[in-house]
C-alpha cells in the first residue's frame, strides 16, 4: 500500500486539518464588524497563523503510527531507503492537505475582498508556504517521536520565520504582480529546498530513534 492510500484511509489526518482551517477562517470574521475595513487588513495575519497551526496539526502524527507499530523497522530490515519513504509521506501530505487548503484560502480571500485578481498567484503562494511549514513541522515531529509534540514545535518553530517573512512580503505586494511573482519564485525555491533538506534530516533522525 503506498503512502497516498495510507493517508487517504486515515481521514482524521488529512480531513481534520482541512476542516480546522475552514473553521478558523470562518471564526475570525465573527469577531469583527462585517462592514469594517479590519476584515481586509487582518486577513493576512489570520491566514499566516491558520497556516502555521494547520501545518503543525497535520504533521504531528506523520511518523507516529509507523514508529509505534514497527513499520519503520520492517522497512529498514527490508533494505529500502527511509529517505524515499519520508519523501513519499511528505508528498502525500502536500497533496492531501496543502493543496485543498490553498484552494480554500483562495476562496476566503475572495470572500473577504482581499484580492481582486491574481487568483492563481495567491493560491500557489499559499500552497508553497504551506508545504514549507509542513516539511519543517514534520521534521519537528520526527525529533519528538516519543516525547510528545511540544518538544518538536519549540525546536523547529524558529526555522519557519524566514518563510513567514517572505510570505508576508508576497501578500503585501499582491497588487503589483511583478514583485509578487518574484516573491513567489523565492517561496517555490524555499519549498523545494525545505522538502529535500527536511525529508533527509527526518529520515536521519528516525533512524537515530530506531537504533
Amino acid at each position, binding site marked *: 500500500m503506498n503512502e497516498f492510500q495510507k493517508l487517504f484511509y486515515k481521514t482524521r489526518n488529512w480531513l481534520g486539518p482541512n476542516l480546522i482551517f475552514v473553521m478558523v477562517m470562518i471564526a475570525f470574521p465573527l469577531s469583527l464588524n462585517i462592514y469594517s475595513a479590519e476584515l481586509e487588513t487582518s486577513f493576512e495575519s489570520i491566514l499566516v497563523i491558520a497556516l502555521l497551526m494547520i501545518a503543525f496539526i497535520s504533521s504531528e502524527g506523520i511518523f507516529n503510527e509507523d514508529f509505534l507499530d514497527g513499520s519503520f523497522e520492517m522497512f529498514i530490515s527490508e533494505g529500502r531507503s527511509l529517505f524515499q519513504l519520508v519523501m513519499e509521506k511528505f508528498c502525500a501530505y502536500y497533496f492531501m492537505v496543502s493543496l485543498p487548503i490553498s484552494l480554500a484560502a483562495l476562496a476566503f480571500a475572495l470572500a473577504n475582498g482581499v484580492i481582486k485578481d491574481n487568483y492563481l498567484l495567491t493560491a500557489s503562494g499559499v500552497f508553497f508556504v504551506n508545504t514549507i511549514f509542513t516539511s519543517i513541522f514534520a521534521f519537528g515531529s520526527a525529533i519528538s517521536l516519543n516525547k510528545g509534540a511540544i518538544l518538536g514545535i519549540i*525546536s523547529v518553530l524558529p526555522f519557519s520565520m524566514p518563510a513567514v517573512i517572505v510570505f508576508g512580503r508576497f501578500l503585501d505586494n499582491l497588487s503589483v504582480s511583478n514583485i509578487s511573482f518574484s516573491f513567489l519564485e523565492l517561496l517555490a525555491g524555499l519549498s523545494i529546498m525545505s522538502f529535500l533538506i527536511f525529508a533527509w534530516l527526518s529520515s536521519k533522525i528516525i533512524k537515530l530513534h530506531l537504533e
Partner: protein
Amino acid sequence: MRNLLLPLVSVKEYIALNQKIYPFVMLFGIFLISIGWITGLFFAPVDAIQGHSYRIIYIHVPMAIFSQLIYWFMAIWSFSFLVWKIKIGPLMTISAAYIGCMVTFIALFSGSIWGIPTWGTWWQWDARITSTFILFIMYVALLTVNGSFQNTYKADQITAWITLIGVINIPIIKKSVDWWSTLHQPASISLASESSIDLSMLIPLVISILGLGLFLFALGLKVSRLLLLKYEET
C-alpha cells in the same frame, strides 16, 4: 602541531588544559571588563544626541556581538561532531548554549531598557529585535531538546542537527537592519570600513568586547567541566 590539537580531540587532555588556563582567562577577562566599563561609564564623552543613556552601549553591543558569535561557535562544533565525530563537540555546543542563552537575554534586556529614553518605547517589532528574540528562543529550545533525551548520544546528534539548521537565522539577524528599514540603527563599528563613532568612545567599547569575550570563554570552560563530570556520572 599534534600537541596543540590533542586537547580538541581527547577528553583527558581537554580537562588538563581547561584547568590550566581557566584562572588566567577569568582574571584577565574581569580585569578588561572593569577597565572597559569604568572608562565607558565615567570617562567617555557624552553623546550629543542620546546624552548619558548611550553608555549602555558598553554592555549592549558586546553582548549582542557574542550572542551571535557563540551560535557560530556552536555550529562549528556541531559540524565537527557530525562529520569528524570529534568527541568533545557536543560538550562544547551545550556549554556554549547555556552561556549564549544568558548573553542573548542580557542583550535583549539592555536593548529594551536603552530603548526607553532613546526611542520612547521598550519594545518594537522591528527586524533586528525580533530576530534576536528568535535567537534567544532557539537557545532555550536547544537546551530543552538536549535535556529531554536520556540517551546522550541521541540527544547530542539531534542537538547538533538543530544547531546546524539554525545557522540560517544568524545572517538574517546580521543583515536585517540593512535589508529592512527599521528603527534599530545600523552597526556603529565595522571591521571593513571606518567606524561611525569617535575614538574616545570606541576604545572602551573594544576593551569591553575583548574582556567579555575572555570572561565568557572562562565561564564556558567552567560549564564544560561541570557537564563533563555529569556525563561521567551517567
